[in-house]
């Protein structure tokens, strides 16, 4: 197999370019409004951070290969070619300063889905070998070990044991025919074990059968972040295989943004067929339980709290109303940020930025946008539904000496959960 090269990169880009991309590039009027939609630009106003500019290599490949005028320019020798130097220069723009948050895609007045194009451009960056080391490492660990953070099954099993001991709850592995297959993100296993406990509590309490898979517990997909459909396909196939082997009805994507995108939207297209099961985000599942009356809660948080919408959930996933429904169950003083829902600002670390050490500095700058939103509100608690956002938020808040606890939505709900057995028993006593 040949090595990665410029030629392979350009060839990959050619294969990526489709009608939407051609239409997007044809529509751009250089109005610059995407810059104002991007926290990497607004908090770091260098013109080259303008989202559409990050696509220049791809625009050139499109123009020179798929437009009459571009082909003519090539023939006349006046076309500016895409070079290795150019791509290594662009690596910063394509990986370090873009979290695939999709805000530019929402704002663009002519309707360009810039994020969609960046995702595709990354395919070319991968094929030409212009990728950040951090993401290569994460992808390698994901493919070879099974988790981008290098977590192996025993580590999870240890966590599970700990939970079972503490809660008296059964955490099933490889339960065939279970309704739900619960997927996790490494970050949750490492940093937020409360999540697994909370989901387990809620599902068990709702009387649902659920399971973990010992073959595949990792929901995140480094292939999506680095932009390699080959790697992404490999990773998502593992989830699909595990789910189909256990014959589950629904796979639950954890509190993670891009894992949801990978599993819910890209997965079927990567493996080339629809799933035999449903894929849902945990917040969607919780809201369904709420609707079905299987999520009884008690007590209200009276702290002033707000919700940080994970980009992949709102702008790329359409999950906007569900977290609000859930928050209303347990919070009496819930307030919205100025730009919330689909307009919410990114935490600054999505789309592989958090796994990319080169972006450490710039992601903290991008966080300033979030900080401004929070400063306006002066809340006591910040709730979110993505472990990646949560780490970035906690890091950012700490760096800016802001004393604000960040809570996962699932855990918050679990804290207020009323055990249904108790209810039933009580009603029996009456």
């Amino acid at each position: 197999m040949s090595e990665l090269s410029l030629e392979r990169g350009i060839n990959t880009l050619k294969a990526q370019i489709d009608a939407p991309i051609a239409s997007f590039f044809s529509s751009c009027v250089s109005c610059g409004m995407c810059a104002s939609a991007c926290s990497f630009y607004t908090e770091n106003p260098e013109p080259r951070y303008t989202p559409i500019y990050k696509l220049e290599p791809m625009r050139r490949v499109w123009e020179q290969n798929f437009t009459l005028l571009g082909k003519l320019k090539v023939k006349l020798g006046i076309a500016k070619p895409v070079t290795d130097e150019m791509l290594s220069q662009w690596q910063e723009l394509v990986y370090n300063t873009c979290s695939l948050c999709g805000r530019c895609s929402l704002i663009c007045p002519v309707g360009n889905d810039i994020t969609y194009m960046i995702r595709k451009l990354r395919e070319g960056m991968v094929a030409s070998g212009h990728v950040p080391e951090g993401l290569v490492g994460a992808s390698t660990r994901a493919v070879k070990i099974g988790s981008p953070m290098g977590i192996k099954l025993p580590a999870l099993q240890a966590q599970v044991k700990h939970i079972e001991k503490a809660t008296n709850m059964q955490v099933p592995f490889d339960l065939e025919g279970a309704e739900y297959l619960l997927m996790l993100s490494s970050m949750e296993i490492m940093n937020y074990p409360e999540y697994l406990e909370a989901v387990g509590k809620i599902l068990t309490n709702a009387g649902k059968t659920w399971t973990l898979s010992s073959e595949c517990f990792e929901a995140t997909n480094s292939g999506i972040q680095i932009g390699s459909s080959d790697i992404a396909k490999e990773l998502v196939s593992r989830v699909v295989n595990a789910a189909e082997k256990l014959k589950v009805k629904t796979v639950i994507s954890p509190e993670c943004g891009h894992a949801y995108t990978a599993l819910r939207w890209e997965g079927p297209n990567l493996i080339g067929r629809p799933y035999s099961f449903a894929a849902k985000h945990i917040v969607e599942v919780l809201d369904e339980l709420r609707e079905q009356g299987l999520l009884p809660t008690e007590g209200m948080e009276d702290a002033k709290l707000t919700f940080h919408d994970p980009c992949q959930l709102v702008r790329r996933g359409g999950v906007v109303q569900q977290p609000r429904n859930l928050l209303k169950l347990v919070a009496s003083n819930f307030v919205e940020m100025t730009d919330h829902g689909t307009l919410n600002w990114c935490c600054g670390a999505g789309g592989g930025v958090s796994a990319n050490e080169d972006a450490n500095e710039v992601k903290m700058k991008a966080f300033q946008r979030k900080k401004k939103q929070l400063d306006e509100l002066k809340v006591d608690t910040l709730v979110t539904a993505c472990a990646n956002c949560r780490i970035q938020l906690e890091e950012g808040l700490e760096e800016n000496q802001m004393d604000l606890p960040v809570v996962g939505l699932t855990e918050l709900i679990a804290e207020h959960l009323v055990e249904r057995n108790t209810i039933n028993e009580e009603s029996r006593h009456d």
Partner: protein
Amino acid sequence: MTQFNMPTVGEQLRENGISRRAFLKFCGLLASSMALAPSMIPKLAEALEKATRPSVIWLSFQECTGCAESITRAHSPSLEGLIFDTISLDYQHTLQAAAGEAAEQARDEAMQANYGKYVLIVDGSIPLGNAGYSTIAGVSNLDMLKQVAKGAAAIIALGTCAAYGGLPQANPNPTGAVAVADIIKDKPIINVPGCPPIPVVITGVIAHFLAFGLPALDHLGRPKAFYGQNIHDRCYRRPFYERGLFAETFDDEGAKQGWCLYKLGCKGPITYNACATTKWNDGTSFPIESGHGCIGCSEPGFWDFGGLYNPVSLPSSLSSQHVVFATGIGVAAGVAIAALNKQAKQQAKQTREPVNVDQLNREVQL
């Protein structure tokens, strides 16, 4: 025949029984027709009084005699008739009594007697295609024009044919017709275009020439006094244009209400002439007032403006067939380009090799 000591215009008029008070009225009307400020009336009167009655040679080439009709059909004694009477028309083969050799002889005599002083009026265009297309007494129009122009003090190119080529020059211009100014370069030429020109404009130009010499001309050689106003700007229907009210057909409600005729092909917006103020038939009316758009007859090339009844803005050769045709070509070329694009993309897809993490790691370690 031609006297060496010509009487002045004033003397000539008085001989015809015109009192000085009548002369003053005449000058007032003349000034009005020439768009001169009323304060100029005394100066005009004084100048005309003293002007020498000129000898005029009138040559008719490729023309329809409409221009001569225009000036001679006016009611007598009209203003234009009066001024026409003040000149000594020594040669005009339609009007003069003499014919044949006698007529040509009259021309020769007038030329000799007033060499360098006579005024040459030309109506009709000159064919360059073949000398035989138009001759007078066996002499081609081109030769005769050159010959007579040589001794002229000034030339009045009367009518659009003489001024710009006119109808004979209309596409495809079979006779190779050209204007006077295309041939004669060394004499002052006053273009008095129109098809035909307004009678008082013709006489006004003559009067101006008599009283004050050559009038100020615009870039097309027309006297600014008569051709300085845009028909559209002076049009009494202009308010309808501003309000966007247009007659769509010649018998619709808009036409009856006197709305703007732009959409019916009125060429007023690109035409300069005195019609809107001077009017025709003793000031009775002018085409737009009679319900028909201006055809732009005082402008060069007006026959080829793209249809008398098409709005000025319309393209002259584009039709919906062109659009359909172009769409067809576009689709055909599009299909070809699309096939090429598809092929290029397909090839890229087929030759694309999968990437694995080992390759990536080697790349990062480099």
